[in-house]
């Protein structure tokens, strides 16, 4: 459950951004969670719900999660498959099992809406 510590890090950033922008209520938070980031979206959401309940600034804020794609390159034929779904089982062109993933590893705070 490293998601909890990541949500704590997020909340520190939100508090800092609110101070800098004279906001006193966060309305929504838009996160980008890569399919290869190692983050379980349900756990992240759970952590967000639990921790925001105790936080006057963030309580009730909507958590919007966007999942960007990752690209899987076939080592056999070079075909590149780009998807935000789970990892393809095999290359759709040649059926080879060896695919090298790139991208989709980050956890990004994209936008916040506050008042």
């Amino acid at each position, binding site marked *: 459950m*490293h998601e909890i510590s990541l949500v704590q890090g997020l909340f520190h950033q939100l508090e800092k951004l609110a101070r800098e922008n004279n906001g006193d*209520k966060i309305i929504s938070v838009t996160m980008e969670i890569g399919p290869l980031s190692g983050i379980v979206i349900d756990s992240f959401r759970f952590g967000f719900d639990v921790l925001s309940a105790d936080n006057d600034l963030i*309580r009730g804020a909507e958590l919007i999660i966007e999942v960007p794609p990752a690209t899987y390159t076939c080592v056999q034929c070079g075909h590149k498959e780009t998807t935000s779904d789970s990892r393809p089982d095999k290359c759709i062109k040649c059926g080879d099992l*060896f*695919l090298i993933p790139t991208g989709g590893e980050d956890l990004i*705070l994209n*936008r*916040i*809406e*506050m008042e």
Partner: protein
Amino acid sequence: MCDTCGCPNPSHHTHDHDHTHSRTIDVHTSLFAANDALAKANREHFDDSGIVALNLISSPGSGKTTLLEHTIDALKNKISIGVIEGDIETEKDAERIRAKGVPVIQLTTGGACHLDATMTHKGFHRLEKEDGGKSIDLLFIENVGNLVCPSTFDLGEHERVVLVSVPEGPDKPAKYPKAFISSQTFVVTKTDLLPYFDFSVAEATGDALHLNPRLRTMDLSSTTGEGMDIWLNYLLELVDKMKKNGNRKL
């Protein structure tokens, strides 16, 4: 909650306006950025000091500490080894390593399921103060026993080693892909137990290579010593490369 705009604090405004009270701020910063920056600084520090740093990741009890004990016995006269032990509680693993006569410190995370770059940074400076802590060639960082969370956090290591023991079953790469995608080396441990378990080394390594074709794979038993030479050579080569490169990046 305000019925008109869903704003949680209706006392703040009236509705003869078009939501000018809420502002959208584009941030676009990575939540890993702080950890990654510190990890990079750690790696540069290891490079400057000519230290090869390895991050060991596995489920609890896969044999990380045992492998380190046997590795120290085998290499103690050839290179200087240092160890940072990560555990949720207790000094037990550090005591086992200390008994081998090499510098070691224990990081207890107090509940956290992984080490991060900050803890590693502090741990390394504590290690430097230990006897022999200033002349380390090879630094092992034994992460908290957990195959999921540690793989998300770069500590500043040069290579990441993921271990799976025979009793755990060969399906770990398929179930915990991130650990195998983010590692450079995969070690199957406790191969002396192969006769008693339905474990195919070929299946486990095949699945891991499917996820990460660049992965180096090996299998060994710390207790019988079978396969240890390949592991030890791998370590010596890393140290050698670091020395030859004149402390530049591996």
